[in-house]
């Protein structure tokens, strides 16, 4: 049986196209452990070995580690305490309590989340960054600072 575009997809299996007598060229997975011999896998594999035209297996790249995984409330509190952002948060709540009740409710409820997500945290900081800077001008609230703090909290494993 004619074949083309053969390549190993792991140590033993080969993906290719075969020229099927009824269906024409169709994709096919040659598995040496296949119990079905409608296609003579032994002969097909022998032909491939003789031709030496099966592309080598290329392992997929390792997935990049997630530097900013979701964080438990306990670990997030550690981040806030360690970086001083907790004090900023408290001051922000106090400031908003009298000036913007809806924003106050948003900020307060965010502090009671069960799981903290990095993207959501970055978005929240962006919303209140200007007010927070007025309350704590010495605290770095840049995205880069939040990223670094997040990584540190994850590594701390609290």
């Amino acid at each position, binding site marked *: 049986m004619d074949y083309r575009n053969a390549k190993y*997809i792991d140590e033993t*299996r080969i*993906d290719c196209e*075969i020229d*099927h007598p009824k*269906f024409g060229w*169709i*994709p*096919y*997975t*040659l*598995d040496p*452990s*296949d*119990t*079905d011999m*409608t*296609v003579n896998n032994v002969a097909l594999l022998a032909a491939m070995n003789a031709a030496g035209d099966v592309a080598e297996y290329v392992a997929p790249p390792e997935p990049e580690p997630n530097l900013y995984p979701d964080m438990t409330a306990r670990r997030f509190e550690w981040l806030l305490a360690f970086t001083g952002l907790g004090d900023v948060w408290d001051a922000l709540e106090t400031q908003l309590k009298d000036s913007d009740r809806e924003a106050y409710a948003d900020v307060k409820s965010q502090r009671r989340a069960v799981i903290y997500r990095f993207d959501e945290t970055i978005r929240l900081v962006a919303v209140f960054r200007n007010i927070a800077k007025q309350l704590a001008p010495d605290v770095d609230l840049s995205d880069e600072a939040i990223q670094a703090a997040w990584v540190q909290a994850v590594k701390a494993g609290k």
Partner: protein
Amino acid sequence: MGSGLSAAPVDVAKAVAGLAVGDVGTYAFLLKENAGYILAHGGTFAGSGLKYANANTGGNFGYSNVSPAGTWRVMGQIGYVSGTHTYNSKSQATSVWLRIS
């Protein structure tokens, strides 16, 4: 019109029942992972891109890591289109497949 088949129906039924899982002529409920497109009924795919599945593939627990060999024809559909969007999440990427080769 003759079909060329001469076996009695009961013999055909026994022969079908005697097929092993994954043999040519058998059906399987399979997931096409990372479809990324619509695969209409009748489309064919290599077994390596499919996995034995159940009907609850919305999460990461609805399918095995075992892929069949050979060539499979989808007898339903993978994914769907709504408006200008193509949907092909795992829960929409399972169907009944027939091994044809």
